[in-house]
């Protein structure tokens, strides 16, 4: 009995001496690091890149106190203080080199563990981003759920405008910003992981979120008198939305990549069709012009009821693809108060909506084919099945043959609910006809 106890004690002593050496070496306290929430990449002037980090500060008041809300305390431009966070930009040869350069000034190590957004400037993206994506994919701290954004103008300016207006929590603000993709479908929600895989994939190309800074200059002064035209299309670029108030940042549209270079962008409307095509469209309101009363609109809320069916095969060396979507739609508004929801008319309305979606989807696909030849829909996944080996498929080089593909689309729409109103009666008044206006 004495021998094992002695052994135990000996092992205990050894553990006491050696385990701490091997272990705590890696340990870092939470407050010894700052956590970059946003990483921005701009083209440099004297060196390759300008890296911008936005990281949260640990000052009190961010949590509970009302705080400065909109415009922060004095000198915010110079110190880079933005609503409980600090924005620092540094010019360096590489992204990770920038972290170490900033160690000279930031008194805590910048950690990328909680980076939520990676912003490239459009200028930079058009030149190719491969060189600066690689370390992000390899480095242990970077996480796959970081979103990839390409912004018009400089990434630094975009990040400087990344303010929190509703709450005080910057991290939450950023996360919820991307969640809006589910409500409108005007921009995709692209994770870094998916972005990087698509960069390498032989069956498709990458896309990213398109963003911009709105300087509120697109909000024209009231000229008065004139009847404004009806415009149901959303074909603006980010930063051009006529609005004012609130944050200046806008996520609007999709950036299309060919390889590691940005080649163009989808408009917000096209983005919706793109999201439907890849089955990631959650829901959104669609404003369509009334077929019987021009100048009047009706609004539906649509969602995918099934994931899209994609079929593909090779017919005589030419890829032929079929894309079938099934949508559920609810009627939200009929300005003309016509009873389209009546079972006698509903088929007609469904037809109109189906045509709208089919045209939109077809045009979007055509645009990616003809304008950019970039398969962001990843149709190649279906075509890959036509080849016996991956090598054959790679040899075929689907990405270059994408524009030759014959892609037919079909959209089935089921109108499900008509809202609280069924067969609306006209609004009565003394004036003749008394047509409703909203």
């Amino acid at each position, binding site marked *: *009995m004495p021998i*094992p106890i002695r*052994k*135990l004690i000996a*092992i205990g002593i050894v553990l006491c001496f050696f*385990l*701490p050496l*091997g*272990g*705590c070496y*890696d*340990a*870092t*306290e*939470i*407050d010894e*690091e700052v*956590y970059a*929430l946003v990483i921005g990449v701009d083209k440099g002037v004297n060196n390759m890149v300008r890296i911008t980090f936005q990281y*949260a500060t*640990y*000052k*009190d008041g*961010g*949590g509970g106190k009302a705080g400065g809300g909109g415009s922060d305390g004095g000198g915010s431009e110079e110190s880079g203080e933005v609503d409980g966070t600090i924005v620092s930009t540094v010019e360096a040869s590489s992204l990770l080199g920038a972290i170490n350069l900033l160690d000279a000034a930031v008194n805590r190590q910048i*950690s990328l*563990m*909680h980076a*939520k957004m990676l912003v490239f400037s459009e200028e930079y993206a058009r030149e190719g981003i491969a060189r600066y994506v690689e370390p992000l994919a390899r480095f242990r*701290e970077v*996480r796959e759920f970081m979103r990839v954004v390409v912004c018009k103008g400089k990434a630094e300016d975009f990040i400087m405008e990344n303010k929190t207006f509703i709450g005080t*929590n910057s*991290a*939450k603000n950023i*996360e919820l910003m991307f969640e809006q993709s589910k409500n409108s479908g005007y921009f995709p929600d692209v994770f870094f992981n998916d972005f990087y895989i698509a960069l390498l994939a032989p069956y498709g190309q990458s896309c990213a979120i398109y963003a911009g800074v709105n300087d509120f200059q697109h909000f024209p002064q009231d000229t008065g008198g004139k009847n404004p035209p009806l415009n149901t299309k959303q074909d603006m670029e980010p930063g051009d939305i006529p609005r004012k108030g609130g944050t200046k940042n806008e996520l609007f549209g999709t950036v299309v990549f060919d390889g590691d270079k940005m080649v163009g962008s989808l408009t917000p409307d096209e983005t919706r069709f793109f999201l439907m095509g890849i089955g990631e469209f959650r829901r959104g309101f669609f404003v369509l012009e009334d077929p019987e009363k021009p100048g009047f609109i009706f609004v539906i809320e649509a969602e995918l009821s099934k994931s899209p069916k994609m079929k593909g095969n090779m017919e005589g060396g030419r890829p032929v693809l079929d894309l079938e979507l099934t949508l559920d739609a609810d009627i939200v508004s009929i300005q003309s108060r016509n009873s389209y929801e009546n079972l006698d008319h509903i088929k007609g309305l469904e037809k109109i909506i189906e045509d709208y979606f089919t045209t939109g989807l077809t045009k979007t696909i055509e645009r990616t084919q003809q304008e950019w030849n970039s398969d962001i829909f990843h149709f190649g996944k279906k075509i890959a099945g036509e080849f016996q080996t991956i090598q054959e498929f790679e040899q075929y080089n689907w990405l270059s043959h994408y524009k030759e593909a014959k892609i037919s689309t079909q959209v089935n729409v089921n109108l499900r609910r008509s809202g609280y109103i069924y067969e609306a009666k006209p609004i009565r008044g003394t004036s003749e006809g008394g047509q409703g206006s909203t």
Partner: protein
Amino acid sequence: MKKQQGVLQQALALITYKKTKRPKTFTLAEMTKGQDQGVPMSSSGDSSNKQGLSNNQEEDKEQQQSENRKGNQYESQDESQNESHNKEQDKPSLGTPRRRRAKKPLSASQVRSNRTEGDKVRADIVSNLQLIKQLFGVPQNKDLIIREFEIGNKKRAFVAYLDGMADKQIINNYILRPLFNMERSDPQEEKRPGQLTGVSLGSVIETNDTKNLDSIEKVAAEILKGNTALYVDGLPYFITCETIGFDKRGVESPKTEGIVKGPQEAFSENLRTNISLLRRIIRNSSLITEFFEVGEKTSTTIAVIYLKDVVNPALVKEVSRRLTNIKTDFLVSAGMLEELIEDTPFTIIPTILSTERPDRAASHLVEGRVVIFVDGTPFSMIVPVTMNELMHSPEDASLKWQYTSGLRLIRFFAFLAGSMLPGIYIALTTFHREMIPTDLLIAIAKAKENVPFPTLVEILLMELGFELIREAGIRIPGIIGNTLGIIGALILGDAAVTANIVSPILIIIVAVTGLSNFAIPNYSLAFGVRLLRFYYILAGTLLGFYGIALALIGFVLMLVNLKSFGIPFFSIIAPKNKKSKDVIFRWPLWLQESRPDFLNPLDRQRQPEIAREWAQQDADEA
């Protein structure tokens, strides 16, 4: 085992307390009812039920001395209450084993019994009086009362008893008074003074139990129990009368195992009361009580109780083997005995279930376990047990099965949280910060901004404070003690946060850990978990989740290597046994058809497949 073992094996052996050389350990063999003749069953058998429990004490002591059970012989002794007959049989049965064991060092009881042979009762009062006085050191010892008197034809006699241990009412009314009356009302006795015998005295004394003992040592043992010894000049033996009557606590409600539904009585310090509490629940003639005495100086009575037709006889044999082979001088509580008889004394997880509830002890008896009482302890010990029993609460059986199952999940969560939560917190905050949601991470960092200590020091400070409150709460008297727990924790926690000594989230961690600890139903296990906490804190601090995983593996290795009286501690899970309907998920009572498989009981079936026969009957026809 050979010397050349793999390093891994040696390391495993160290972790799991397995010695390279060790005596064969006890494993519980499977038994059927037919087989139990082969294994020497414990003695006192049926007779103890017929005659009340006290009668067997003497026999049990003798068994203890002989250490070699000869079942049939003793059973026959019990049936015949004749003490002289008993004496005749004693000698041959005692002689052989003692001689055979002479090489080994003698146990306390053996030393005592060796001495006894020279201490035979003489047939004259003077020397006997001298013997008793000498034994108890009478001029100095003021507790022993010796009342000398004369009965019959001026025959000298005396009674001896311990003041405070014996009931004086009984001595006065039922021993002394009849003896004095005999003098007056029995003229025949005066004519034939030499004829005064134990038999006639026995019919005079009105107490319910008398014994004729010819050994001074045994007489002393009886006196020590609170009985009264009577000696009449000329007799070759003492007559002891049962007069036990000391102050004792009544049956009260449980202190540590309080429940809402179910019986509200608990064991007390008195052995007799405790056994009667059990007998009141299990009214079965095969409920056997055996007595042992442990402790050279204290001679503490230990009762072993089991259901003869259910329990595996090998288990009873093993329990009595361990009890008879304890050499110690002082034993007053079940906790001390636990340390002396448990399989692996180095583990921090208890392998003996301790309960103060008769209903709980009874339920385990019926399952085929053995209950051990130590006189003077209001707790019974139940052996063997597995991890699952430690996680069960006595209330489980009283509640509906759905509620119980939910509560048990909570308890297993409490076990994990109570042991691992602080360790996981340290691992998370120092090694795996990417696993904390960003908002929470920044909140923690904000709170920690002004705290000067690393997380480990924060945790240790708070745990220390918490342990202090717990320990002080027990010591601080009365009402203050109860309130101190709450007030102390509140003030300490709040003040520590305000003073920037710890971060607020840590208060939550420590509080949840503390709460979890209290949710563990077994008091000993909760203590084990309290210690385990620091083990995981160390592991988490050193190596993060990797360390916690290593620590967990080590702990589980230790657990699965534990045994409780031959039963693997993780039975049902490892080794895999027949499934039980009452482990984590408690199925309805009518589905629990068999006794625990790992106990290898003689009777495996608890109830037929259809327990609710009425449900199959036609209500109108019946």
